[in-house]
């Protein structure tokens, strides 16, 4: 490679000009960029409209989980204690968020759409024990609402994703 004095001097001009431009950095805690619609954040467990849990405790999510962070202990539904719509329900449903890699395989594995990944991403804690989310926490709506961007802003080549996100 031969020396390129003219190009080098042009480079100095470029870096000098940049000083007077406005930085493009987004100042995070003050400005939170809206997440894209298919963003995979903190999990959420869902209920049917009649109040019954969608989860039937089949443990398919736990089986699909590559980082083995979901723990499900199922129990039988009884007529006087009916929790879910199916035969059984999840007596214990825990997700260890410090191990979760937010791949979304649990969401894909679930036959009843009981678990989905939400948009919340500010889930750091001071204590590792606080990273284990119990069923109650996952069933409740998230504390913080994260702004979600308009799906039309994000161009995707697959039309299915436009409507299902």
């Amino acid at each position, binding site marked *: 490679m031969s020396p390129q004095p003219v190009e*080098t001097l042009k*480079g*100095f001009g*470029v*870096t*000098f000009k*940049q*000083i007077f*431009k406005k*930085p*493009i*950095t987004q*100042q995070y805690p003050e400005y939170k960029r809206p997440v894209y619609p298919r963003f995979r954040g903190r999990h959420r467990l869902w209920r049917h409209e009649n109040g019954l849990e969608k989860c039937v405790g089949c443990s398919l999510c736990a089986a699909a989980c590559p980082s083995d962070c979901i723990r499900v202990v199922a129990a039988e539904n009884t007529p006087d204690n009916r929790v879910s719509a199916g035969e059984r329900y999840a007596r214990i449903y825990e997700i260890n968020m410090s191990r979760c890699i937010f791949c979304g395989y649990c969401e894909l594995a679930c036959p009843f759409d009981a678990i989905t990944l939400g948009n919340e991403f500010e889930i750091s804690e001071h204590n590792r024990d606080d990273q284990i989310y119990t069923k109650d926490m996952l069933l409740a709506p998230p504390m913080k609402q994260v702004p979600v961007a308009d799906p039309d802003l994000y161009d995707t080549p697959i039309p299915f994703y436009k409507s299902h996100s």
Partner: protein
Amino acid sequence: MIAAATSIPSEPWWIALIEAIVVVNVILLLFAYLTLVERKLMGRMQLRYGPNRAGPYGLLQPIADLVKLIRKEAFAPAAAIDLPYILAPVVSAFTAIAAFSFIPWGPGWTVNGWHINGAVANVSIGLIAIFALGSVGVYGFIVGGWASESKFSILGSMRTCAQLVSYEVSLALSVLGVVILGRSLNLPEIVARQGSFLPYAAPEFVGLLVFFIGGIAETSRAPFDLPEAEQELVAGYHTEYSGMRWGLFQMSEYINMITLSGLMVTLFFAGWHGPWDLGPIWFLLKTCGVLFAFIWLRTTLPRLRYDQLMRFGWKILLPVATVNAVVTAALVVAFG
């Protein structure tokens, strides 16, 4: 005072002491805020903000860095040879600060009958003294890497050593032209001659260029920052250093940069002389200009490969510096 010539006005020792204390503190403050300015400026040049969280506009960032470094555990390898391991950063930082004492920043004043010099140590061989201290400072890098008893450190210190020794030759040769023109090794005298003539940057343009490039390599700044090469390696000779010991190495690097900028202003840009009689303010402004050039260079140019560095140092820079010195000498003999 070493070899006080008759032309150098002497001052009582306590004035020199006060001057030294003031200068050391100013240099340390300058170093602290140079790191901030560098990060901010580099950020702006890369369309970022740079540090802006600690205090208004991030102005307390250097203090936060200092507190962090001091409170950090100074981890030392078990095999390290204690005395040289601990002494190495101290030697580097000391020589870096001491070298600045020879740089004149003002013409000297008389206050209440006491004479105050424009430099902490006004010696007749100031230029040589600065180079000598710079060479002693290299020992800090070599010994520090060696005493760490780590292969990465010793390879890093060999790399650093080879680079610094190679470029020191060109650096010393590049100032020969100025010495020939100024007919003195005394820095205040060289500055005074420039004030009555013109800044040596004009007649010694080639020398200035060689001095600048050699200076970048001497202070191991990008594009010659192979001793550290932060994007490619863990670190060089200071791989096994942490906390404030590492901070001292970093400090010596930045203070060397300030000293070199001051030396460049002294030798090539007429020191404290300027259109208006501002004295030290001119010196400070010019030094900041040179420091800006250092930072500008860092953002613009990519790092050299090691063989390119060596080839450039020995095959281009050294011959150019030699020819420049010889031609200057010949012209001075022929015309004046």
